[in-house]
């Protein structure tokens, strides 16, 4: 980094790279953009790599997907399969299934690519979810990044669509049954259900259109949308500049980190190869979706214990938990399948609505219009952290319920019992998780206060001449302290009174009051950061904390924490 004030003048281009750059710049002014990007400062933290996992898995999906698309034939025409594997030789099946078998057995590296593609899909969605958790728990979704949070949530939904449409392509028994369940859910939609089912399948289930349609969705529509939204996502990320974790010198007005070139870019490039390597290793060594074991789609057989991909488990579990009694017949003899609508439409709808609206609700109850670039430590926003954990708990309980048959056989329990346990847990679990998490956060905040006020325990016990024992505490250095005091304990909203100075009723008072209630829920319990005055007071009280044994020369009694203590 040059600190001289006279900018260097570009040398006459002589190398091929220099000449190319000159050619491009004369036509695009690309130099200006590059200058900004090359030295853009990026903060560094391991958790900022989670988004990279999602991004790079997607790149691997594109690479392996193009390979698959060369050999996969998305046709539902029936054909007699000739060739390996032996159990499938001579069977009647769709061309799609047959080409999947050929790709696995006769295209060298084909099975590897299929498995890499499938593992990448699982890791892609997992990467998105974990990345989202990082963003949520650190408050990175706050202004000005709410829009990018929305883009991210859309990406999550699109990733589920991509995974689902891909999973259905090989036209095997499992994917066919998955489609049949989808058809059942579509039919449950009031009024237009039957027509929607025809819309999707081009007639009655399964018909002969669904695989070609899903193929277009899978390799064109959804990837194009994902690609475009990833573009928007990264553009906004660069525009807003990355958030940073709290620490000395980090404020909402600056960004502390490393320039993009070379170290940051090199590391990122390296991460791509490492993630690709992990996926190649998984694809090579861990069998997944060996469709010849299930056979081509046939509406009759079904295998017990079959599991959808993990990101669909929550829907499966939600369907399993709902009691059938909810299906009702309305007046006019119309059937309202609430036993399907609630678990398959309403519950996921609520989960995604929570994700979409959360940043706006939190800003509203915080009364917050400022920009935030320094992240929160999760403990410092106990209610948000609690809500996040409650959300994940609900998600995990539903996903576990989606494997209740496996749990039942594994632990030799009755499936009815397990289902009932999960039904109750679905309501109790998130509330309990919220409460516990919030308590833990508040506890950690109090511990931070303690630490700032009294310093680290050193384990050294000293004895004063008067017989008093104390443990020596080492005060925090200023960086450690700053990390623990540099936050705001947000407070519930104040609302303006119901009537103005002249006693006239104010419009919107009721609404304000409701927001205030929610705001109280968020911020009633809080732990304020230590102030310098408090620290000074603490030192005045417990002066001996600061004392070094050498000063007073009391006998060193014990180096361990077992001795009698005053504190």
């Amino acid at each position, binding site marked *: 980094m040059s600190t001289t004030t006279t900018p260097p003048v570009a040398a006459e281009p002589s190398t091929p790279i220099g000449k190319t750059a000159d050619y491009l710049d004369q036509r695009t002014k690309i130099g200006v953009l590059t200058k900004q990007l090359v030295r853009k400062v990026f903060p560094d933290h391991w958790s900022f790599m989670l988004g990279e996992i999602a991004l790079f898995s997607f790149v691997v999906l594109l690479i392996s997907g193009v390979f698959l698309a060369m050999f996969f034939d998305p046709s539902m025409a029936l054909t007699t399969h000739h060739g390996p594997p032996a159990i499938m030789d001579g069977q009647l099946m769709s061309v799609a299934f047959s080409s999947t078998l050929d790709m696995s057995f006769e295209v060298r590296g084909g099975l590897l690519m299929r498995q890499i593609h499938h593992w990448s899909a699982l890791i892609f969605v997992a990467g998105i979810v974990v990345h989202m958790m990082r963003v949520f728990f650190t408050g990175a979704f706050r202004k000005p990044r709410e829009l990018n949070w929305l883009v991210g949530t859309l990406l999550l939904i699109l990733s589920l669509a991509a995974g689902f449409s891909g999973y259905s392509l090989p036209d095997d028994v499992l994917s066919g049954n998955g489609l049949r369940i989808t058809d059942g859910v579509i039919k449950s939609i009031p009024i237009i259900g039957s027509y929607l*089912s025809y819309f999707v399948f081009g007639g009655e289930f399964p018909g002969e259109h669904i695989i070609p349609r899903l193929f277009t969705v899978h390799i064109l529509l959804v990837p194009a949308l994902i690609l475009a939204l990833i573009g928007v996502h990264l553009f906004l990320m660069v525009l807003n500049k990355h958030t940073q974790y709290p620490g000395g010198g980090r404020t909402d007005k600056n960004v502390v*980190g*490393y320039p993009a070139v070379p170290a940051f870019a090199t*590391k990122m490039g390296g991460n791509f190869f490492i993630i*690709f390597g992990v996926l190649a290793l998984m694809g*090579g060594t861990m069998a997944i979706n060996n469709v010849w074991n299930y056979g081509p789609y046939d509406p009759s057989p079904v295998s017990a214990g079959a599991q959808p991909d993990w990101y669909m488990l929550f829907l499966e579990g939600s369907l399993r938990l709902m009691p059938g009694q909810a299906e009702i*017949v309305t007046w006019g003899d119309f059937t309202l399948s609430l036993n*399907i609508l609630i678990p398959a439409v309403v519950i996921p709808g609520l989960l995604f609505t929570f994700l979409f609206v959360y940043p706006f609700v939190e800003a509203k109850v915080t009364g917050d219009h400022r920009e935030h670039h320094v992240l929160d430590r999760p403990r410092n926003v106990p209610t948000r952290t609690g809500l996040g954990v409650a959300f994940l708990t609900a998600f995990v309980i539903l996903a576990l319920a989606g494997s209740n048959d496996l749990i039942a056989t594994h632990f030799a329990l009755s499936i009815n019992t397990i289902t009932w346990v999960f039904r109750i847990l679905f309501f109790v679990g998130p509330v309990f998780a919220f409460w516990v998490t919030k308590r833990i956060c508040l506890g950690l905040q109090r511990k931070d206060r303690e630490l700032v006020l009294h310093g680290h325990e050193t384990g050294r016990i000293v004895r004063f001449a008067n017989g008093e024992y104390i443990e020596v505490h080492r005060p925090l250095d200023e960086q450690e302290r700053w990390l623990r005091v540099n936050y705001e304990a947000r407070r519930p909203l104040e609302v303006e009174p119901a009537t103005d100075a002249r006693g006239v009723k104010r419009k919107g008072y009721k609404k304000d009051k409701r927001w205030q209630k929610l705001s109280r829920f968020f911020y009633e319990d809080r732990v304020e950061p230590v102030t310098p005055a408090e620290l000074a007071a603490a030192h005045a009280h417990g002066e001996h904390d600061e004392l070094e044994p050498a000063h007073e020369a009391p006998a060193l009694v014990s180096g361990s924490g077992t001795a009698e203590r005053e504190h």
Partner: protein
Amino acid sequence: MSENQNPQGPSRDVARHDGDGTVAQTDRFVDPGVPEHHPRLADVDPKAAKRNERIIALLFAISCLGTIGSVVAYFAVRPDGTTPGVRMSTVLLGVAIAVSLFGIGFAAVHWAKTLMSAKEYTEERHSSSSSEEVRGAVQQQFKDGLEDSGIARRPVLKGAVVSALALFPLTIAVPLVSSVGGDWNVGSFRHTIWKKGTRLAYDPSGRLIKASDLTVGSVAHVIPDVPAEERESHEWITEKSKAVVLLVRMDPRDHKRDHREGASYDGIVAYSKICTHVGCPVALYEQQTHHLLCPCHQSTFDVADGAKVVFGPAKRPLPQLPITVDDEGYLVAEDDFNEPIGPSYWERLK
């Protein structure tokens, strides 16, 4: 961007009063500034730097070997069409590719971490919004543009442009929607290919079933008897999706009730195999309890008691196929189902 050498002074915005519900604390600690930069071993010790250089070069070399290995594996291991053969080729290729990728990845990360500058820089952030002047100018431009177009003064034009834009998607939507659902004949949900006199056949062999073939406690997966050629078409798969039946023979004394009056034959009951929840094939029969379990979401039907739901997310009993035997002793259907099979839908009872 500036290099961080000295800790900065207190940051102004921390103590700023923000007047938006949070109480400003003037009594706050002072930001100690960016922590001091500690050089790494390789920054100060040329020997350490040299060692790291060698490690990085070695990692790149390993990557080259991995790539060569993958090409060798590709040509040397020809899968022979058996599952173990394919698996072998997959493992070798996968591991070799992974080595090639890991070599590059770890080399790059190690290079960045040990040899490239690790000095932190601080860059100013600017407000995310544009300045007031810019906003004002843009507003003015839009106002001028609107004025120039005259749309406010010419309401006819406004109506015309809105109508044209709102209507034109129909040019694509109408042809699409009218074809995308096939014949749109959703009434087909009501019928299956079972009709009076259709013989019951084993799935998938198509062999006919005599009542005398079935012992008490046995279960059979059943399809309607159609000519073998007809079973090699798409229409068949779609019809089969609705027509599959599960046949159970129980001791007539255990058989409490039919779902459809008189539909069983001598303790033999034929129920639709398509779950009334969301349509999986129900396939797990428990002889002692006469319970039929759907593996998808565990709806449980009591076959001895009109296939009513005893547990799970389904609400309605499975539809029953009325059966009897013909002169030759083969099981035959007496009629189609008298209600739509499978999942519920809005106009099911219409």
